[in-house]
């Protein structure tokens, strides 16, 4: 190795012509080569806000899941949470790219992820709440992935073919996330007194956020989510959390807790320190 910069020589193409590393390949755009023309009669503003909202949910959730790395109760679980976060990060990249195209103001996924202020984020409040114990992580994932799966199933028929394809692709991933959370809910709910107590407490904490997730959704979607959650809690032998009548959160309107500010400060720090950097 003659180069002082260790990564530089790795990034150079070998004599056989194969670049060895994903970065520096010139293929940063996750929608590269996809036909991204917008159907002419589509409401661009509506598509932009929909993609932004679902992209922000995924980006913020992925960040919270990544925080479990080195902190999970067992190694396999750490790998699981990191993988789920990676799936969501992939969905975030596709959705934010699509939001940028629909908006048509020259903003790409990086601009949207790294150079917006907290009040410009449209994620649900549930996603930004700080991590609690492992039961809290599972309760949040159960609620989030059950709801998101139902939303993506309905979006697979969206008139925008790109959003429809992103959603159809995400359904399989979200089904896996939901099953993972459901299986842990059963294991903890049907486990020791301590695990059961913690699982119940965690569900009580996240339950009021159902209102924001389901706000404005179709009755069939709400029924599908409630049926899934009922099935899981039934199998876990856990009671339905007392239906706290909370006002729906207003994350979709840009009203967030200070926790999002902290999360974004960390998420955006490198990109903001060197806006010209490429990776």
């Amino acid at each position: 190795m003659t180069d002082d910069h260790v990564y530089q020589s790795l990034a150079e193409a070998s004599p056989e012509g194969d670049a060895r590393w994903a970065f520096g390949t010139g293929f940063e755009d996750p929608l590269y080569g996809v036909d991204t023309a917008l159907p002419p009669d589509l409401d661009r503003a509506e598509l932009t806000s929909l993609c932004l909202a679902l992209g922000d949910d995924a980006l913020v959730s992925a960040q919270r899941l990544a925080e479990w790395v080195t902190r999970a109760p067992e190694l396999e679980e750490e790998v699981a949470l990191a993988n789920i976060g990676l799936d969501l990060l992939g969905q975030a990249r596709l959705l934010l790219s699509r939001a940028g195209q629909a908006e048509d103001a020259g903003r790409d996924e990086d601009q949207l992820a790294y150079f917006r202020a907290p009040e410009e984020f449209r994620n649900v409040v549930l996603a930004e709440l700080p991590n609690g114990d492992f039961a809290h992580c599972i309760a949040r994932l159960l609620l989030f992935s059950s709801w998101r799966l139902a939303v993506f199933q309905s979006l697979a028929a969206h008139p925008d073919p790109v959003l429809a394809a992103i959603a159809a692709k995400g359904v399989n991933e979200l089904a896996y996330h939901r099953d993972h959370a459901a299986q842990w809910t059963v294991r903890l709910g049907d486990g020791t007194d301590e695990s059961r107590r913690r699982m119940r407490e965690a569900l009580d904490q996240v339950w009021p956020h159902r209102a924001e997730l389901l706000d404005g959704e179709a009755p069939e979607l709400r029924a599908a989510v409630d049926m899934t959650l009922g099935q899981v809690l039934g199998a876990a032998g856990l009671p339905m959390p007392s239906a706290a009548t909370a006002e729906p959160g207003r994350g979709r309107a840009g009203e967030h807790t200070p926790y999002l500010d902290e999360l974004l400060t960390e998420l955006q720090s490198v990109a903001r320190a060197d806006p010209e950097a490429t990776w």
Partner: protein
Amino acid sequence: MVTLLQLARDTAAQVLDPELPMLTLADLGVLREVTLAPDGRVTASLAPTYSGCPALAEMRADVDAALRAAGFTRVEIRTVLDPPWSSDWITPEGRAKLAAGGIAPPGPAPRRAPGGPVPLTLAPTRSVVHCPHCGSPDTEETSRFSATACKALRRCRACREPFEQVKEH
């Protein structure tokens, strides 16, 4: 006489997957199509396995570089999202190569009617997965996730070896 289109197809089909290097992108079912326009432009279409798969950028770069090395000067690599990739796209040859490489191939992917309900799985799946080392059907899932998004972790009760399985997806 090999046509240029055949050359382009063979070249793209022989590119290896960066994470499962016993498989070509064609074996994995990621390479969807290779076309040659009258003006000489080659277009190869790749379908990502998982939305967040970090290997996709490298796959694109590898196919691009292989086609250029084969003499094609105008190359375009397209991403295809629809229909989405599923583990059912892995070819029979790909499955045999996985098993020979110590990774259990996936069973049939879950079948669902488009827009129909996605059933919950509340217990670890009990499908029979044969150990790629000793062939025993007596294996158990130790984790539904592994070193890459597309694999789960299992253990053989007969020979005690841990192994990976490409997930049904």
